[in-house]
């Protein structure tokens, strides 16, 4: 690594794209014979030019959704959870479905930046920055739901174990909701620090480039006096590796703990030991699908085809295929155990999912999560951008329905048939869900305008000339 850095420094000084020395058998990660200056220019320019009409249109749409969501949230908080479609039997539905969905989306970023970093998957460099930003935003969207789903959200801080004057009354360490609080806040903190750490050299680059005064001030403040010295680089890379190592277990822990919300309960359809690995795989599955959806739009809209190449998409498709197949296997296992346990309640839950009133949701889930990713066995599917885009969208739909099916179909018909009920969402709930997408896209669009969406410093390490070892 140090050698690469030295070479990099040299190349920056000479600013000459040398002849590629990479074997022609290995496809380059970045196309178009880019040199280091080209990279800085290509990515820096995106921030310096004023946003185009497309960006404004998307931003307006996202802000509209966000505003509608805020109105719906205000309505919920001022009137009561009764504005939702929940009832005495189904106590969670859209709220927790959206929570788990967004937490799942938030898995890809850290997986890409930490685990793929440790495994030395250099293709990650084109996508890790946006994926991490997506993670942070998705976790924020996720965090919204446990907050507003409370009957008395103004007392949300009672869930935190803070010192108080109530004597022995504290929080319940047996409750998975409390574990969620720890898991998610830890994950968010580490992801934020990790993302910011990776940004520092790029912020310094931008500090040195931009003309607009407010941007210069912003980047100066945020780049923490980065000077690009060897010592700085050396320490930076050590810290980055350590952070990656720290973040890795969190990728696995967060969704395992989220799955405990269900796995440690006694409801048939929730009470299942397979949930932690199944949820983690599902989260990475959905996270990668979301990264693909976003990256396809971004590379097209921002003309970044030479940075986010078809090969990147191909690789992501492969991860999607793997995790999707794990999810599919988990479904099969769940159904088999449901049958094999001979537990009438378990059996009924499985049958009810497939044939009951929410069968349409179940079969949407099966189609999108078990069948759709199987297309990625084919190279042609992995390299067709419209197809990848469509399939990745379907995977996201499927993963949303997976959470809906788990939560609603387990609750609506549990042990005592007398309490069985049907849940139908209200406009308020649907608007809040759309609002969470509004928040997600608003924040992502702001990110695109504020920070280099591709890691300039890391890309330079994988340019053609730098790839030989």
């Amino acid at each position, binding site marked *: 690594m140090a050698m690469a850095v030295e070479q990099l420094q040299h190349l920056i000084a000479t600013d000459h794209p040398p002849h590629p020395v990479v074997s022609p058998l290995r496809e380059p990660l970045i196309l178009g014979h880019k040199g280091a200056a080209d990279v800085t220019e290509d990515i820096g320019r995106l921030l310096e030019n004023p946003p185009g009409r497309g960006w404004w249109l998307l931003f307006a749409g996202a802000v509209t959704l966000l505003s509608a969501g805020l109105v719906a949230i205000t309505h919920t908080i001022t*009137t*009561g*959870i*009764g504005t939702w*479609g*929940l*009832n*005495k*039997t189904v*106590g*969670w539905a859209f709220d927790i479905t959206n929570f788990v969905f967004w937490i799942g989306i938030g898995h890809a970023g850290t997986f890409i930046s930490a685990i793929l970093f440790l495994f030395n998957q250099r293709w990650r460099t084109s996508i890790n920055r946006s994926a991490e930003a997506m993670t942070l935003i998705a976790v924020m969207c996720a965090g919204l739901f*446990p907050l507003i*789903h*409370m*009957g*008395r*959200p103004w*007392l*949300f801080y*009672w*869930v935190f174990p803070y010192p108080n004057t109530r004597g022995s*009354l*504290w*929080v*319940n360490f*047996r*409750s*998975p*909701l*409390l574990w969620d*609080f720890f898991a998610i806040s830890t994950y968010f903190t580490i992801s934020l620090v990790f993302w910011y750490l990776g940004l520092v050299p790029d912020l310094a680059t931008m500090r040195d480039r931009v003309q607009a005064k407010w941007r210069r001030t912003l980047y100066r403040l945020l780049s923490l006096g980065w000077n690009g010295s060897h010592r700085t680089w050396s320490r930076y890379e050590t810290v980055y590796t350590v952070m990656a190592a720290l973040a890795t277990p969190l990728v696995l822990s967060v969704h395992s703990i989220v799955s405990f*919300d269900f796995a*440690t*309960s*006694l*409801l048939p359809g929730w009470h299942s030991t397979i949930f932690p690995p199944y949820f983690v795989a599902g989260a990475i599955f959905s996270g990668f699908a979301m990264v693909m959806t976003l990256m396809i739009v971004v590379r097209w809209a921002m003309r970044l085809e030479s940075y986010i190449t078809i090969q990147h998409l191909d690789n992501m498709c492969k991860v999607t295929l793997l995790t999707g197949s794990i999810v599919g296997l988990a479904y099969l296992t769940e159904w088999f155990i449901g049958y094999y346990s001979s537990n*009438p*309640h378990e059996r*009924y839950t499985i049958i009810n999912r497939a044939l009951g009133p929410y069968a349409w949701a179940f079969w949407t889930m099966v189609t999108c999560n078990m069948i759709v990713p199987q297309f990625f066995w084919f190279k042609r599917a992995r390299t067709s951008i419209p197809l990848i885009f469509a399939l990745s969208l379907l995977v996201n739909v499927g993963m949303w329905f997976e959470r809906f099916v788990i939560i609603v179909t387990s*609750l609506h*018909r*549990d*042990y*005592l*048939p*007398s*309490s*069985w*009920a*049907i849940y139908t969402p209200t406009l308020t709930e649907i608007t809040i869900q759309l609002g969470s997408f509004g928040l997600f896209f608003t924040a992502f669009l702001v990110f695109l305008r504020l920070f280099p969406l591709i890691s300039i410093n890391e890309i330079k390490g994988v340019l053609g000339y730098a790839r030989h070892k």
Partner: protein
Amino acid sequence: MSRKRYWKSLDEYRGDAALTEQARDEFPAPPESGVSRRTFIELAWLAAAAVTLQSCNAPEQKIIPYAKQPVELTPGVANWYATTCGGCSAACGALARVCDGRPVKLEGNPEHPLSRGGLCAAAHGELFNLYFAERLRQPLSHGMAAGWDELDVQITQQLAALRQSGGKVCLLTPFIINPTSNEVCDRFLRQIPGARRVVYEAASTAAIRVAHERTHLFAGKPLYHLHKAQLVVSFAADFLSTWGDPVPQMRGYSQARDLRGGRKEMLRHIQFESTLSLTGSNADRRVQIAPAEGFDALLYLAKLSATKNNSASPFAAFEPKHLNANTRQTVEKTAEELQQQRGQSLVVCGWNDADAQAVVNFINQTLGNYGHTIELNAVLANSSDQQMTDLVKEMNDGQVAALLIVGVNPVYSYHDNEALLRGLDKVPLKIALNPTLDETASLADYVCPTPHFLEAWGDATPARGIYSLTQPTIAPLFNTRPWQQSLLKWSGDARDYYEFLRAEWREKLFPQQTKYAKFDEFWDRSLHDGIFVVENSPEPTPAFNAAHLNGAVERLDARAAEAAGKLSLALYQKVSLRDGAHAANPWLQELPDPLTKITWDNYVNVAPKLAEKMRLVEGDVVRLSKGATAIELPVHIQPGQHEDCVSVALGYGRTKAGKAGSNIGANAYPFVTFTNGSFQYETSGVAIELTGTKIEFAKTQTHDSLEGRDLIKEQTLAAYRQAEQQEAHTGPAQSMWPGHEYAEHKWGMVIDLNACLGCSACLLSCQAENNVPVVGKDDVRRRREMHWIRLDRYYEGAPDDPRVAFQLLTCIQCDNASCESVCPVLATVHSGDGLNMQVYNRCVGTRYCANNCALKVRRFNWFNYAHDDVLANLALNPDVTVRSRGVMEKCSFCIQRIEEARIRARNENRPIREGEIQTACQQSCPAGAISFGNLLDAGSRVAQLKRDRRNYVILEELNLQPALSYLTKVRNDEEA
């Protein structure tokens, strides 16, 4: 150790005395210079702040103690007063719990010899009626507010004029069993020549009295001793829900079926009916008959009974033509069974037809049941439905000069509404004595508001020798006056009704006892107990007079022929609204019907087969018509209904029943016919047709099948007798956790499924006790009812003729509670005496506990439920928190009662006594199905029942270790 002296500065080292002194003083005094600038500003600000803060204080409120403490009143401590329920004519004994001067709960009076502590749902609803905002608040004269004096002058003048002119005065009253009220009526009528009294019952059972007058020359209603019976055969009599005096009947019935304590005998119950009634659903053998079969089955049973007892009868020549082979065989078998239980059987019949009732009397007479299971001992004036129809006729003929209407609402409930309205138009003077401005009172010239029974004096005699007192528990909330007092006043007696009542008791009842020498002592005792029982020797049953049966066979046979092959309509009453008098009560409107689980509506019950034939689905609005009479109602597909019969509940479709009760459902009274001298609630030849619209019912349970799950255990009596010990269920439960430790108390409950009859009184009792809100029709539709208790009803077998099972369910207070482990903020925790406590003010409303509850007994406050009616808020129990929105709630085993008993016991330095704590549901259960107590006390009833071999827990495989368990239901039939 040597003490070293350290020095801090050279000055100190040198020993400068002043400096040394200063150095020792940590906080040296400031140089003296008077008030400094800083101090001045500080003080100025302090003064400004002090002046400003003064205005920030909350307005001063004073807690004013009683200047003169009323006797027996301690703020926060409830007083109990014995009284008599005025909800219907059964007059059950009640106890009113009065907190800080306002009644907040009605409970059954265990001293009452008939109701024995039971109360029905409608009785619990009476508490709401007391604080009903739409009660009349002052007298009305021609629609304008008036004073009592003014009213009295005008009415007295008009009555005096009538006395002179000889105009006919009629007093229209409900069926009253209050001796003093009847005396008041008599006195009033005596002083106006030609005046007469007409008794009107909307849902009439007058035919029973008419028939007994014919067959036994006895004027009054019979008293049924179900607890003495071994076999009861009922022909469509809903005697466990609304027919007769339901509470005493339920008491007797469940007593005769009680297997607790090792009994091996129980009452057998056979029910013949076309519609599925609550009573039929509890029967050991329910025989579904076509409407046309009904009279034939009854007549055939009479014939068989006569033959078996070799008694001469007019039925000898009778041959059932409309019975199908199955029913015929069942009737024969029933006759055989009845014969074996001579003298300890009972036949009852729900048809309000004097001929049919006379046949029933014949059967009971033949079987020797009079004097054993039936007693003719009520002392009551006779009345018949004929009186009312005659009155309407007279009114139309312009013969009635004045009509005084006391507490009945014929404008709503009289079948020939048009004739009645025409007739009322022709009555020059109409006086209504009523608590509300209902359909009838709003047509009256003068309206005299009457108080609620909790505000008034009164008495009742439900059976000969049993007298109960009604006493006021609160000063009248409005400018009301008991109707008895109005009548007294208008008959020239200036006495208060209270004085009159005392005088009557002094004159008539005081001499009948010897225990008390002074009347005041006797009165105080009777008032304290709420009941006075005269020790009487039973009177012999009057002789049976069979002559009146002549012609009955022919008439009944003709009616059966008329019904054959046609679609019949049966009108019935629900446990909630009864005949419609309770329609204004939202508690009762929201009480789910025990069978259909529908709230806030009435509907046409249609058999599954008929629905299939006519392509009806649940909620289809149909037009139900007979001739010119037609109503539109949604369809409910009711398993167990005979396909030749549809049924509709009475009591709905009120137009002046306040905010909650008006315009809900449709009025079915126009279908009542006046046949054979009685109001009849079955009519044939109705038609139904689809209207094309559809509604969604507000149901609290939408899935009717148990799905083969082993939640309700049931066995036959034979199997129960054989089984030596409790079945092992799923083996001993394994747990890695040692469990809770309880020091002194571990509260537990046992519900006997064999006793629970599904009357739903407990739901209302709980609602009143625990301040459970009403959520309204829309939110029930969204499955958000708040009742802490629910009555699960399941059907089993073919939909055409299913078995019905009820399961009363509330929080089962698990030891291994799934709710407790998941709450992030410890808002639901386990108490040291075994309760799952819900801490309302700690709850943040994640609903995780409700999701993780296997029984779904937790209720969430989706909104802030209405508590803005200041008057209705007076009904709130001050011992129970009113929950705000966003908070979870559930059954607490009436923790406020447990705490009350605990405090009382502690003050008296003694342990809590067995039976001292009764939960609200348990206390007034008419069937005594619920037992509650300390499980750690091996001798307590509940601990004994836990050892009963019928004891089982629900969802045992989950190892919840609940404190609530069930006793298996036992059917006294060959097949289970």
